[in-house]
């Protein structure tokens, strides 16, 4: 009984210590984020649900786009990414003109290359070549789409 109580007490001590360490770690992380905000541009990283390859609806709802990288996106590699463009009802959009832009909002710089659509694959699918992200972190990848439903922009948030 006595020994059990001793163990219990040491466990309590351990738990308290662990919790204290955890709290310290959390406050340190918060602190370093605050510093990043001072040195960065102040852009706020979107919620986790806003990230990903899509399907993603354009700003004015005209198109739904989905990214299909040929290989998983990795920093510092020149990559090819296909994009599937459909209207709100899921019909493939062919013959669209698409321009590519992007950058890191928190660092205030754009893409290190000038990627562009090099092939209209058909069935609303377009091939974008020359895509490179030169560091890990939050990237915006923007497509300006001019197609049969009008002009609109879709912005992907990518976590490299």
């Amino acid at each position, binding site marked *: 009984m006595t020994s*059990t109580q001793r163990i219990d007490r040491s*466990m309590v001590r351990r738990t308290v210590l*662990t919790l204290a360490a955890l709290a310290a770690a959390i406050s340190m992380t918060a602190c370093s984020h605050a510093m990043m905000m001072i040195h960065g541009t102040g852009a706020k990283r979107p919620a986790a649900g806003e990230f990903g390859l899509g399907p993603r609806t354009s700003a004015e709802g005209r198109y739904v786009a989905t990214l299909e990288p040929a290989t998983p996106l990795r920093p510092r590699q020149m990559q090819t990414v296909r994009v599937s463009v459909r209207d709100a009802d899921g019909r493939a959009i062919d013959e669209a003109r698409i321009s590519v832009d992007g950058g890191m909002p928190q660092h205030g710089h754009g893409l*290190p290359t000038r990627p562009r659509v090099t092939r209209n694959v058909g069935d609303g699918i377009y091939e974008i*070549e020359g895509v490179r992200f030169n560091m*890990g972190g939050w990237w915006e990848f923007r497509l300006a789409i001019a197609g049969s439903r009008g002009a609109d922009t879709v912005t992907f948030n990518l976590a490299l």
Partner: protein
Amino acid sequence: MTNRTFSAASLALVATMATVAASGRDGWTPEQLDELRSMSLASLEPLPRDPTNRVADDPRAADLGRRLFFDTRLSANGGVACSTCHQPDRAFQDGIALARGVGTTARRTMPIAAMARSPFLFWDGRKDSLWAQALGPLESPVEHGGTRALYAHVVADAYARDYEEIFGALPDLSRVPRSAGPVPDQDAVSAWRALSGGQRDDVTRVFVNIGKAIAAYERGMELGPSRFDTYVAALTSGQPPHGILTDAEVAGLRLFIGKANCTQCHNGPLFTSNEFHNTGVAPRPGLPVDHGRLAGATAVLSDEFNCRSEWSDSRARCPELEFIVTGEHTLDRAYKVPSLRNVGERAPYMDAGQLATLAEVLDHYNRAPAAVTGHSELRPLRLKPVELQQLEAFLRTLSGPISVMEPAPARSTQ
């Protein structure tokens, strides 16, 4: 009660194990551990092929390239080789602000190890392959100072058998003068123009193959593990990383991937994004106006020896040229992000050796002065002196050996 004792004891055991595991991680979060692993040499991808150079991975070419690299006959005055500035015992650089060949250049000598992994070469990225890069200094009037005709003659005089084994028959150079080529020297240009198109192509082909052999040698220069890599390997294997880095060095590493924002450019296993940035480093007084990448991006597109040129061994597309950024104001006085591997071994720093010590470099990033030309991308870090010292201590953990190809065993005479 026995059960209770047992469960309490096992909980205590679990708690102890958790503590040990946490100490094995040296206080890094799983996300930070991923980032550290991404910066370790263990994450370095295999050396990419260079389809523009068909002898890039030919050991015979690498052996010829090694001998050419150290050969001072490849210069106007017989006194300058690649190794004059790229000194093997100094991590293949020279330790001075402005490189000196037959004259003095306007740029700091760059290291070579792992450069085969860089899409663009030189501080302004005006070359797009190792072999095209190697040809630049040979025709620079202040580096090797000679002409491509001279170099073709040196190969024919001293390396004919090895050259022909790799590249095929040497051309007839009997009517080619030793000084002829598209260089700033007027006499050499006149002699060059006096040659027929076929003769010029013959000479240029030998010249290009010199570059390709040197590139094959340079591709073999790879980086060995530093104390930082040993530290990450210990963390990855779950071993307590004690005694590998000091507390100050670990604190510097935390700053490096944290609020000092270094990984914005110095990321990946080579600590470089291979991109170009204006960091507001003032030009060295007395040097000609230098626009850095703004000029380099244009130059590489029209370079005689680029990936699209007739001298490339590949007819495939050249994505680095096809999707290059040119003409943007952000490129003005932007320079290549150098690898930080061995950075502690190669003062002075920056494109013209403007900053003498690592402490001066860190002070520059901390203050982030405005650029004299173009726009600096830096913002003041406002780090404390002790933090700058910790960063410097960390940077010095990135030193490691460079492996180079050993000379091939002497061939038996037949």
